[in-house]
């Protein structure tokens, strides 16, 4: 019962889908951001696994940069959330519908 | 200067329009008349310089625009375009001179001058893209004229006018690009020059598709049935000057383009589509004449009558012989003069009564005898009475098409009947009978300004009806090479049979003898 690359990729895919569900489901923006983190983490598993199975470091590098990007996104995202929260007192995205059509 | 006269003719009005922004609005009209008159005399000078015995293009100018893509600023005229250009400048002049509009005259005049540029440009262009540029550009001033100075439905009408024609011409544009691509495939070079394209002989199936693409663009502009419905709205809502120019010049672009593009580029397709188009033309002639008969608004009558007459022009064009094509081109000019005059006349009464419903009138002949007379003359010209300008064109067009089909010509010939029906009944409603409405009892007859515009038109109508030679000869000379080109390019046996071979010395001789 050998664990192959496919196992990891499937895991990655499943986690990604969980992230997708979260992205679609969450109305609370903070928790929505959690879901986006899941998306990136899911790919990181994939990258690390591929790097392992191909014996190539590039995947790890990619994962590394993905982590960096995720971190930056959190900073900006939180910044945005803070101004929004200051202005409205809520972080529920359902009230964000002033523009439509 | 002579070698650049066409460019001057094209861009002078535009330049003048730019400068016109500076002119004070009270003097705008005088400025407009001056510019239009200069332009008109320039065009007359062009006529003077024009050598009627040469059959090819004259006053050619060329300058690269997008050399890498084969687009050149290429202009030139022959007998076909010369007179339509003169007609354009003439009508712009007449139109501005007879302007009765009081709202924002300056804007209107600037717009008209821009429109003049595009009109001259379309007819002078020998490069497909340059042609297209002017073709599309002409929509904008007209859009503005209808939309800003028109009747209550003006916005609907103007948008309909614009979008309809724009859609058609986009399809045409794709056709042009294909044409250029075929040229590229054949020669390895991009070119949009019409004269270069003329040398291209395309396989029949390509011709058919391209013909169809061009046809959509042209047919909407003409407008051919069933693409005509923008026209009544445009005319119905447009101010007088808009209708005049629309009917006199803009519609001619479509039929002119048939002669310039469709026929010489796709001779086999032209023959292939001859009868379908003839059927459409016949529907245009009869059906729109009937619709015109049912109208309640005099302007709509004239508008539909335009469609009907355009049917004859299309028919003449697709006669594919010198008689028919020359006739149709002559009829373009004739119809320009006559329908332009009719719209001016409708404008005269509209200015006085602010209605165009025929039921509002009646018995005008006794109140406005001069008006009735001029209207009568123009109506008779429209009906195609001999010795008026229309007859020459209509006769030649029908004569030409008779060569191709007897039965169709017989049916199409009902134009002269149905035309008389709606025109006479409209005239009767407007001018005959007793004056029933009090408002009409004290209408003023045409004044000097209006006469200034109308009398020259009457003179032209009769003069060219009696002596069409100055126009007909150069037109005929310029049509001959086109017909010959078509014959030489024709591949299908049917096309060769249907398009006469003018170079055949035997045929020439026998014709000489019969004279």
């Amino acid at each position, binding site marked *: 019962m050998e664990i192959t690359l496919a196992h990891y990729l499937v895991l990655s895919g499943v986690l990604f889908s969980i992230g997708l569900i979260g992205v679609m489901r969450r109305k609370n923006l903070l928790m929505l951001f959690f879901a986006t983190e899941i998306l990136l983490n899911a790919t990181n598993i994939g990258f690390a696994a591929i*790097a392992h199975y191909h*014996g190539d470091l590039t995947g790890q*590098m990619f994962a590394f940069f993905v982590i960096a990007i995720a971190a930056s996104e959190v900073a900006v995202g939180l910044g945005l959330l803070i101004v929004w929260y200051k202005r409205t007192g809520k972080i529920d995205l359902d009230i964000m519908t002033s523009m439509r059509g | 200067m002579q070698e650049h006269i066409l460019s001057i003719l094209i861009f002078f009005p535009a330049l003048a329009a730019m400068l016109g922004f500076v002119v004070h609005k009270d003097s705008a009209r005088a400025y407009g008349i001056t510019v239009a008159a200069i332009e008109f005399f320039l065009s007359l000078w062009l006529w003077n310089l024009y050598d009627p015995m040469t059959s090819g293009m004259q006053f050619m100018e060329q300058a690269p625009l997008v050399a890498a893509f084969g687009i050149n600023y290429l202009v030139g005229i022959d007998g076909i375009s010369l007179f339509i250009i003169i007609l354009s400048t003439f009508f712009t002049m007449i139109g501005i001179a007879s302007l009765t509009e009081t709202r924002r005259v300056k804007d209107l005049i600037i717009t008209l001058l821009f429109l003049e540029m595009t009109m001259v440009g379309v007819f002078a262009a020998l490069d497909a893209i340059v042609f297209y540029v002017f073709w599309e550009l002409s929509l904008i001033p007209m859009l503005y004229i209808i939309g800003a100075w028109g009747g209550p439905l003006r916005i609907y009408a103007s948008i309909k006018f614009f979008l309809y024609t724009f859609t058609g011409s986009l399809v045409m544009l794709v056709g042009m690009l294909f044409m250029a691509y075929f040229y590229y495939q054949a020669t390895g070079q991009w070119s949009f020059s019409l004269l270069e394209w003329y040398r291209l002989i395309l396989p029949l199936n390509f011709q058919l598709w391209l013909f169809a693409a061009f046809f959509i663009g042209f047919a909407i502009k003409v407008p051919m049935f069933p693409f005509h419905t923008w026209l009544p709205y445009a005319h119905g809502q447009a101010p007088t000057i808009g209708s005049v120019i629309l009917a006199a010049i803009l519609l001619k672009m479509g039929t002119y383009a048939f002669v310039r593009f469709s026929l010489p580029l796709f001779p086999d397709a032209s023959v292939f589509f001859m009868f379908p188009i003839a059927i459409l033309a016949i529907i245009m002639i009869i059906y729109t004449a009937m619709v015109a008969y049912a109208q309640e608004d005099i302007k709509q009558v004239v508008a539909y009558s335009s469609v009907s007459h355009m049917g004859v022009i299309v028919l003449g064009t697709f006669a594919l012989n010198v008689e028919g094509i020359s006739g149709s081109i002559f009829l373009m000019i004739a119809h320009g003069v006559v329908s332009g005059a009719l719209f001016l006349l409708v404008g005269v009464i509209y200015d006085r009564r602010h209605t165009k419903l025929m039921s509002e009138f009646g018995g005008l002949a006794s109140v406005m005898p001069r008006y009735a007379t001029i209207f009568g003359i123009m109506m008779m010209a429209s009906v195609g009475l001999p010795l008026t300008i229309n007859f020459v064109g209509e006769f030649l067009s029908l004569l030409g098409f008779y060569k191709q089909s007897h039965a169709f010509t017989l049916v199409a010939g009902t134009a002269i009947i149905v035309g008389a029906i709606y025109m006479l009944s409209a005239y009767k409603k407007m001018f005959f009978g007793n004056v029933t409405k009090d408002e009409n009892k004290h209408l003023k007859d045409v004044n000097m300004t209006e006469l200034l515009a109308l009398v020259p038109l009457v003179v032209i109508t009769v003069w060219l009806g009696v002596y069409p030679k100055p126009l007909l000869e150069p037109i005929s000379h310029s049509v001959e090479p086109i017909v010959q080109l078509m014959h030489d390019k024709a591949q299908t046996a049917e096309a060769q049979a249907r398009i006469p071979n003018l170079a055949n010395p035997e045929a020439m001789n026998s014709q000489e003898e019969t004279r």
Partner: protein
Amino acid sequence: MFEAIAFYLFAALTIAMFTITVMTSQALYALTAMAAGMIFISAFFFILGADFLGVIQIIVYTGAVMALYAFGMMFFDTTRTVVEKRDNPRVIFILGVLAATLVVFILVSPIISTHIEANYPINAAMGNSETIGLILFTKFLVPFEIAAVMLLVAMIAGIVLAGKKMDKSLTLMAEEEIALMSATQAKPETEEGAH
């Protein structure tokens, strides 16, 4: 065998944690579950021999990111039960499951390739961190530097957005108000600038 057990164990845990993150209505649970999930993921990295990544994962995610989120939660006061309006939950699950199925459907098939070459082979002789350091400062120097810029951007953005400067909107104020404001605040602002 060990690998398999570890894989399945951590896979199950990660999935469970992330599912909780996504599904729970308790913000605190979600945060905790996500932090746990992140750590379990680092376990994969260790299994896969990417020690450096594993460490980074723990430090950056559980250290920095989670701390930020925790701060955010407190700031936004979302420690209580989060009430979210759910519309068409079925559609969401259908879409999610469909996506998963489709992705998995393709991913289960083996990769057939004879041309994959490792551009930067993992050198067993060297430690993971060392090799990574080696290529990070050669091949991936530029992205690394850009990442630094990116972090700087994120920092500036975060500061600017979250800072006091955004409290009063010049965009919405009339010109006179702005003039008045800058006149009264002229002093403190210059002081601030001197900082």
